[in-house]
């Protein structure tokens, strides 16, 4: 059995968690021939929005372990890991996985430390099927995604996080019915020390939704100065999207850090990414490689961002972007 830590937002399991469930299901299925992979269970800690259990069943989860109780109401890496540890003990999982999100990696690192086992972060694929008794090798992102590392995971449970967009989330053609098991594990006092005590709303702008935006308009050094963002901000507005910027832009103080896309900023996965005046260093690519379609606007036809894009316009963003904005407005009448 493979246990997946599923993160939820207000409406249910996050998209990234559904990808991870799909990844785990593929891994479990690849082993069902000799019976060692087995079913996929999910563990949810804290809020369980209505319909989450049914939705997870649609992705092949057979059982949802839901940790309830005051101890899990506020997020804390140690206490949430304690819940997953209890679910693991109850269900004897041979592998425990989560999304390679900040929270997913944090909770799994706690779990691995508590169990005294190794952990592999940001796995993109498993070269060979998972087998309980066999060496298990995973391929994972290192150097911000510029390099892949093949790593042995000899310990059981095998603990690993799955990088965003390693696979596409795919429901089963014939959904299974997941059963819900609520449990309230006992928690040590020490695990409750580091928990979130308050949450304030983020910046009151569009960047808060960068990670989940359907359209992201990006801007890099080509913006030229802090005053060079009017066109891209307007385009983001017209497309109901978010603004994302490269590291150089935040380093120069042109835009706030929370708008940064890249290895040390947000990792985005929009339907459409429009990087303007961004050359496409590997650290930026690490943050935007999961975009479905990329339309690069750049003066340099040989810039990595252009050669790796789906579409490109060769030209100065300060001329091209206003012309696009004008054309959109003209057609809308």
């Amino acid at each position, binding site marked *: 059995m493979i246990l997946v830590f599923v993160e939820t*937002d207000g409406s249910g399991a996050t998209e990234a968690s559904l990808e991870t469930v799909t990844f785990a299901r593929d891994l479990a299925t690849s082993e069902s021939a000799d019976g060692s992979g087995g079913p996929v269970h999910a563990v949810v800690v804290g809020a369980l929005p209505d319909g989450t259990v049914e939705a997870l069943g649609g992705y092949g989860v057979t059982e949802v372990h839901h940790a309830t109780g005051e101890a899990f109401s506020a*997020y804390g*890496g*140690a206490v949430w890991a304690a819940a997953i540890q209890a679910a693991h003990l109850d269900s004897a999982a041979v592998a425990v996985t989560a999304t390679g999100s*900040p*929270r997913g990696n*944090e909770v799994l*690192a706690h779990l691995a*430390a*508590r169990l005294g086992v*190794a*952990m592999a*972060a*940001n796995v993109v694929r498993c070269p060979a099927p998972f087998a309980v008794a066999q060496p298990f*090798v995973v391929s*994972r992102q*290192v*150097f*911000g995604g*510029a*390099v892949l*590392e*093949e*790593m*042995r*995971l000899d310990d059981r449970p095998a603990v690993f996080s799955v990088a965003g967009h390693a696979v596409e989330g795919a429901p089963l053609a014939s959904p299974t019915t997941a059963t819900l098991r609520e449990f309230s594990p006992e928690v040590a006092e020490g695990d409750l*020390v*580091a928990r*979130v*005590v*308050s*949450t304030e*709303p*983020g910046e009151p702008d569009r960047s808060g*939704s960068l*990670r989940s935006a359907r359209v992201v308009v990006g801007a890099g050094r080509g913006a030229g100065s802090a005053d060079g963002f009017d066109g891209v901000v307007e385009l983001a507005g017209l*497309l109901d*999207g978010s603004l994302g910027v490269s*590291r150089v832009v935040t380093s120069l103080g042109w835009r706030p850090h929370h708008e*940064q896309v890249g290895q*040390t*900023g947000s990792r985005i996965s929009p339907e*459409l990414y429009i990087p303007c005046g961004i050359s496409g*260093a*590997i*650290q930026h690519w690490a943050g935007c490689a999961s975009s479905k379609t990329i*339309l690069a606007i750049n003066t340099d036809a040989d810039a990595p961002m252009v050669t*790796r894009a789906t*579409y*490109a*316009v060769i*030209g100065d963003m300060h*001329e*091209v972007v206003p*012309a*696009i904005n*004008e*054309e*959109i407005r003209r*057609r809308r009448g």
Partner: protein
Amino acid sequence: MTNVLVCIKRVPDSSGEVLLTADAQAVDARYVGFTVSAHESCAVELAVRIAAAGGGAATVLALGPAEAVEQLRAALGVGCTGAVLVEADPVGFGPADVAREIAAVVAAHEAAGRTYDLILLGNDAADTGDFQVGIRLAYELGRPVVNGINTVEVTDGVVTARGAGADGGIETYRVPLPAVATVLEGGVEPRYPTITGRMKAKKITVEVVEPRWEPAGSARVRLTLPPAQPNTVEVLGEGTAAAPAVVDLLRGLGVTR
């Protein structure tokens, strides 16, 4: 008084083209420089500020080759007043090994009367991206850990740490000292060393220690480079003349009317 230990790692600068060594066990860094991650630069800045505010000291630690003294000196140049090098080839060390070695230094210093109230690390190393050394260290030491934070303040023995939450909000943690925190870039602007800072840094002796244990290893089989993506870009046009083609595309993708 708050004494802070901040842990950094010397890593190859991978912002340009990356090459691997012949045995595929490491990145070939012969033609690139070395650096520390942006997260760790911010951790050093926070360590120096907290030490200064509370009349304590900031000590910097690295596990790495002799050359990692370069990165330790850089941290000394911006206000750390002590430095420790656990001299070893980091390629053979997994995150659990590194955490154990840092814990050994903390214990040895404590036995000698130098305690660390707060230990700061980067959220994840720029090279191995394990996301776990800080958390494993906290378990080694039996201390609470706050992960992925942007700002840290210490008041009356309590750490207040803030960072971005899963839904984009700002989350606050309050934990009693002694504690461990891992830092994400973005909360503070790392300062540049001054001439006097650099001069002072030169006079400080870096404490060099041997690893305490044989490392269990990182379980690395080999490194590979992702396959090169063929250039399949479709150029829609040049300059402003491309605008109609762009809007046709946007409409085709269903992102505008």
